[in-house]
């Protein structure tokens, strides 16, 4: 038997050439692009006077910089309008498929890639957005790249990459009630810090991971980047195969059954050599929430904020700066702290399962009057399905409104900004200073925790609402 990891198998089969003492030339099966990190890449192609090498292997969407209301009207902000228009023009000029605003297949790049069947096991996938790691949930090597690299892929369908080291994270046991995939990944990051996996590509394994739906697995892989990892992946299994069989819309000419036969080979060998192995006990994980300004600053929702003495020595200045920014003090409990905003959405938690979880909890209850809620589906397809399932009705009966798809408050490039000093419980992936608007205070959590806070207007343990 070999000793290869799943990562090795996919990587090695995509190496066009290894440069002596340098990076590998890695072939890319699928690239996704969006309006914010692509214009300079197209400018580069124009300056060199070269075409896109394989236009059929890139797919474009507008998501980062678009409004989430009145999408049928012209975008009001001029810079945003120009950027979206530039993408449409570039796609037309270079022959790339583009799902723009109002297109029925539009949505956040990491939501539509999987749901339209473009993301498949065994592939190499890149996008100029760090959360490209999401696609690893399907057993693909997927990672975020910079704009120069977007240009490389457009020009040659290849990228120069040193091969990362390999880590396996096994989550044993089973999850307690009220604990979601989001809590699992937030727990892992809180244990190993935002640089705990830098230089590695992570494979997730173990009973807790196997028990998750594809949506949950995408949430896990999505946040791999928040612990510094280049990406994360999960070996495809029956859950993965069923996902493809049930896809409503697939690219033409695909025969899933024969593909699935090949995909069954995609797993790490029994004695595969990982550079590092970590194991966690899923039974110990509780609903998580962040209290600081990076995703590693997370605690169980009923815990207290640590005191600086308990935090790794040299990190003290950053720790205090973070608490100051958040308006918290060491040792305090977060439960009961007032909340001003709720954001349900993003490529971390903007899929149908997340809307369902939120709706289940708020059903028959009312939104707290002091809370402003932004409920943003990850794609047009998610929006349609939410309406089909009556989730929009449940939401409106409880005082919430379903917006139109986009990245929205995840990075607040559009109008969906959290005002300075306000507290937002957010299902997105980053709580950096100013991420959701200058001065905004972000508390990352699961859709259930967001729903509980939306109802009570305070940070609340979602387990109180679940029987």
């Amino acid at each position, binding site marked *: 038997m070999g000793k290869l990891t799943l990562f090795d198998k996919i990587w090695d*089969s995509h190496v*066009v*050439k290894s*440069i*002596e*003492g*340098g*990076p590998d030339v890695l*072939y890319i*099966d699928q690239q996704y692009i969006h309006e*914010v*990190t692509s*214009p*300079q890449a197209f*400018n*580069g192609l124009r*300056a*060199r006077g070269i075409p896109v090498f394989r236009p059929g292997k890139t797919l474009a969407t507008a998501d*980062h*910089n678009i409004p989430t209301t009145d999408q049928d009207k012209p975008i009001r902000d001029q*810079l*945003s309008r*120009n*950027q979206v228009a530039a993408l449409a023009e570039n796609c037309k000029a270079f022959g790339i498929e583009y799902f723009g605003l109002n297109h029925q297949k539009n949505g956040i790049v990491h939501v539509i890639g999987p749901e339209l069947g473009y993301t498949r096991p065994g592939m190499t996938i890149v996008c*100029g*957005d*760090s959360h490209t790691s999401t696609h690893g949930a399907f057993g693909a090597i997927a990672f*975020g*790249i*910079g*704009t*120069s*690299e977007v240009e*490389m892929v457009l*020009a*040659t*369908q290849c990228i*120069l*990459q040193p091969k*990362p080291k390999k880590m396996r994270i096994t989550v044993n046991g089973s999850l307690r009630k009220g604990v979601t995939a989001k809590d699992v990944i937030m727990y892992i990051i809180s244990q190993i810090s*935002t*640089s705990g996996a*830098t*230089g590695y590509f992570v494979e997730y394994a173990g009973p807790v991971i196997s028990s998750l739906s594809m949506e949950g697995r995408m949430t896990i892989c999505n946040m791999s980047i928040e612990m*510094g990892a*280049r990406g994360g992946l999960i070996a495809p299994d029956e859950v993965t195969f069923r996902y493809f069989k049930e896809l409503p819309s697939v690219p033409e000419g695909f025969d899933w059954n024969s593909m699935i036969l090949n995909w069954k080979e995609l797993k790490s060998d029994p004695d595969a050599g990982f550079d590092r192995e970590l194991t966690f006990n899923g039974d110990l994980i509780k609903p998580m929430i962040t209290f600081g300004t*990076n995703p590693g600053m997370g605690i169980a929702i009923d815990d207290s904020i640590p005191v600086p003495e308990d935090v790794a020595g*040299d990190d003290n*200045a*950053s720790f205090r700066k973070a608490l100051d920014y958040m308006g918290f003090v060491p040792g305090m409990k977060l439960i009961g702290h007032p909340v001003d905003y709720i954001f349900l959405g993003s490529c971390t938690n903007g899929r149908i399962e997340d809307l369902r979880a939120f709706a289940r909890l708020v059903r028959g209850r009312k939104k707290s009057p002091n809370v402003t809620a932004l409920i943003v589906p990850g794609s047009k397809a998610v929006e349609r399905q939410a309406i089909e399932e009556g989730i929009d009705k449940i939401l409106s009966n409880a005082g919430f409104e379903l917006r139109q798809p986009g990245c929205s408050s995840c*990075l*607040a*490039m559009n109008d969906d900004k959290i005002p*300075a000093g306000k507290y937002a419980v957010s299902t997105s992936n*980053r709580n*950096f*200073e*100013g*991420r959701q608007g*200058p001065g905004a205070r972000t508390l990352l959590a699961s859709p259930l925790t967001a729903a509980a806070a939306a109802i009570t207007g305070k940070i609340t343990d979602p387990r109180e609402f679940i029987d």
Partner: protein
Amino acid sequence: MPKEKLNILESRCVPLPLENVDTDQIIPARFLSATSREGFGENLFRDWRYDKTGNLKPDFILNNPAYSGKILVAGKNFGSGSSREHAVWAVYDYGFRAVVSSFFADIFRNNALNNGLLPVIVPEKFLQDLLSMVQKNPETIVRIDVQNQTITVPASGQSHFFEINPYKKECLIKGLDDIDYLLGLKDLIASFESEKNR
């Protein structure tokens, strides 16, 4: 496009003794709407540099006239967060040619090297010594030698051999670009495709 060549860099430094400086601090998302690569330096560390009304915050290091130079010295885990290359463009456009830290986020490091910005990884002790030296004496000079992979502080005699991928090193010294290299491999790539049925 050919980049500015970088081999020997001798300069004063700007100290930023904070850890986990993420890309949202380096260049906030609301400045990402541009469609060119130029001009991002103006908004480098925007929310630390300017107050809400657009006035310079005097206590932020970039606004302290005592400090200047082409080398940014920053705390551990610099550049974490998003893949936005705009962060590197902003650091470069502001005038920095190297960033010294004990740890860099992967994507930032790749992006930096693709844009002629040199990330220099030094041990934590070296970093802390350098930070306190520069904070005490803004005129401290640091010499970075790409060919020999050394970073030296002549005043203290401290020197460190830093790692850099040999391919990337050559690109930096010669001002070469990955895309030129890849374009030269097009035939190889096409035969890879037909062989592997991709």
